[in-house]
């Protein structure tokens, strides 16, 4: 049914020129007026902003910005998360001026910058460096220039089902970052909960096949970030640390401590149902689990391997400007408000549970997060502050990150389903090398 041809469409277009005119009047045209990209543009008008979040997420920050800047409106367009990168790539490559500001997945920043899809914002670098929490400045820098401003950051915690642990006679992990549990402890306690308390699963990482979550396993085992070399285009995923981490990950599923067949972000309903002893998830889960009735849960710092490094995932989203935008002056104002102004940055977190990148906003936000789920979420702020300053390790900065992540996701899925970790990582190394050959 989805067969078609440009020629036919074009013929139809020509035939229906009149209809086009009539129909165009029905909709508001995006209006890609030809202009000089790079020019500062008008001081008032309508900014077009594209991202993967629900519109209500950005309503507060847009309202705040519009109130401070009369004459500027911001029109937000949501693109489904799974298609965001492809759609952006296509539209930015076509120099689509109907996007002014867009959300930038932090590890993909270098690939976007290298292809010329971001405006150089280096003149803001000192301001950003001073305004944001540790680690959130560096993720926006590539080839010594700053290409986007940070909006959110993230962390991962160990959530536990208090009722199941109690039934199994397991003392829950402490909230104190100094008494962080090891992965070995988590697996053992989870197993006990399966045997004695009827827990269906021992431990589930939320983003069960995603590099964001699994990088910390390898880093903790001393395996490094997976990419190395002066140009960050050499895969390094067969180090002893990576093999150790992936063997542990493989065994998690082989020994039925965690489920196969459930995708990333489809895992939190299992914890909400009270069937999982431990769950490794993000700050957004504090709000999600807090809203579940009759679920007795607690929170502790993200685990590490015994004898290994304490490493926690971090990073989230920045915002950047499309070089083809004809309204860059307004776009820049919006970015400064959402990132550098503590009030604006805080407003981006009003309708979703996520950590603001701005230091002052971060400090104001912590008590809110601590109180979000009453006693259950108490102490989250302290863990976050500690992790941000001590254990957070961002994803590697490489122009080849997009291909790398896609290949790794497939490798994780195979290992999870029983593939031999070493053999599968070696195969992935070959695939990455082939994919990167054209980038060198």
């Amino acid at each position, binding site marked *: 049914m989805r067969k078609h041809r440009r020629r036919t469409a074009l013929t139809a277009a020509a035939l229906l020129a009149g209809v*086009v005119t009539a129909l*165009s009047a029905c909709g*508001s045209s995006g209006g890609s007026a030809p202009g000089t990209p790079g020019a500062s543009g008008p001081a008032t008008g309508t900014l077009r902003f594209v991202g993967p979040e629900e519109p209500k997420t950005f309503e507060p920050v847009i309202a705040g910005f519009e109130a401070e800047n009369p004459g500027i409106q911001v029109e937000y367009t949501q693109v489904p*998360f799974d298609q965001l990168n492809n759609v952006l790539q296509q539209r930015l490559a076509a120099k689509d001026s109907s996007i002014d500001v867009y959300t930038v997945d932090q590890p993909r920043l270098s690939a976007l910058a290298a292809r010329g899809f971001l405006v150089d914002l280096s003149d803001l670098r000192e301001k950003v460096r001073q305004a944001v929490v540790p680690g959130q400045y560096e993720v926006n820098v590539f080839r010594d220039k700053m290409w986007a401003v940070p909006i959110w950051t993230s962390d991962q915690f160990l959530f536990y089902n208090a009722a199941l642990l109690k039934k199994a006679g397991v003392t829950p992990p402490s909230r104190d970052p100094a008494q962080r549990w090891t992965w070995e402890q988590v697996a053992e306690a989870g197993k006990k909960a399966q045997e004695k308390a009827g827990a269906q699963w021992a431990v589930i990482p939320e983003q069960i096949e995603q590099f964001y979550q699994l990088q910390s396993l390898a880093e903790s085992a001393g395996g490094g970030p997976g990419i190395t070399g002066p140009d960050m285009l050499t895969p390094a995923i067969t180090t002893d640390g990576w093999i150790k981490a992936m063997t542990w990950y493989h065994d998690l599923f082989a020994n039925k401590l965690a489920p196969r067949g459930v995708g990333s972000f489809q895992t939190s*309903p299992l914890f909400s*149902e009270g069937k999982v002893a431990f769950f490794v998830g993000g700050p957004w889960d504090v709000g999600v689990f807090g809203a579940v009735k009759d679920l007795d849960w607690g929170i502790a710092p993200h685990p590490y391997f015994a004898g290994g490094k304490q490493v926690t995932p971090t990073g989230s989203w920045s915002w950047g400007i499309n070089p083809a935008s004809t309204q860059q002056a307004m776009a820049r104002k919006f970015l400064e408000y959402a990132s550098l102004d503590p009030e604006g940055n805080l407003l981006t977190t009003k309708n979703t549970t996520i950590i603001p990148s701005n230091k002052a906003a971060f400090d104001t936000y912590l008590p809110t997060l601590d109180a979000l789920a009453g006693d259950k979420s108490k102490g989250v702020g302290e863990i976050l502050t500690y992790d941000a300053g001590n254990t957070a390790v961002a994803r590697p900065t490489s122009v080849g990150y997009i291909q790398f992540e896609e290949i790794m996701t497939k490798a994780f899925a195979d290992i999870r389903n029983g593939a031999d970790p070493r053999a599968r990582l070696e195969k992935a190394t070959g695939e990455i090398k082939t994919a990167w050959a054209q980038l060198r």
Partner: protein
Amino acid sequence: MARPRVRRSAAAVLGALAGLAFAVPLLWAVTSSLRENEAMFRYISEPSWRTLLPSDVTLANYAALVTGDFGRAILNSIVVALATVVLGLVISAAAAFGLAAVRFRGQGVLFGLVVLSFLIPFDAIAIPLATLFRDWSLQNTYAGLILPGLGHGLAIFLLRQFFLAIPAELVEAARIDGLGWFGVFARIYLPLSRPALVGAGMTLFIFQWQAYVWPLLIGTDTAHQLGPIALANMRGQFTIDYGQLFAGSVVLTVIPLIVIMRYQRHFTQSISTTGLK
């Protein structure tokens, strides 16, 4: 006597099993759309009758659809699909008439091109086409969404094959009686071709109803969002509202289902008579 009956019963049982295998996931989606979010996965790991039949029915998920952007998106989908069917049928029928009733040089080549056109996946040309459409300021307009669905090779092919079955004597008689080509088209071909028009119309309808890549490229603002995009947008980055997702999927399935049920008789007729002379 007994053997054919056994064979028939076995076939019936197999048929029922196959039907059930197709129905169960749909039933599960319908049931889940009537559940509260918290109970969404409660009966998955330990299947019971509750897995497929809701115990506490709630319409909250459907109510939430109406208040959100989804309602608007469904309306947009209906507008785009209907406009495509009406305009597309006019274009396809006219093209098919030209290819079937009128003789001219290069007709075979032209028909070959039409056949070729629906063998190339639309997705393969979507990206360069989107760049062209953007240059023409057609992004975020209904016209941008409708235009690629209008000239549909398969619809032209279906209609042309059906038109060939209309006796040439009929046309000749009408021409002798003074009817012009447009009269022959409008007063003889179209009234005789209802089943084929329904078949072609459904082809056009389903092409637009399922469209995903194209609207993502060309019509993404909230005012022009189509149903499948709004459905995909429900899958948030950090959390997924499964209740609404299931309810949205049910709505998106039920609408074409109604159209197909209503016109299926014509559709099968058009396929079975296509190409008859």
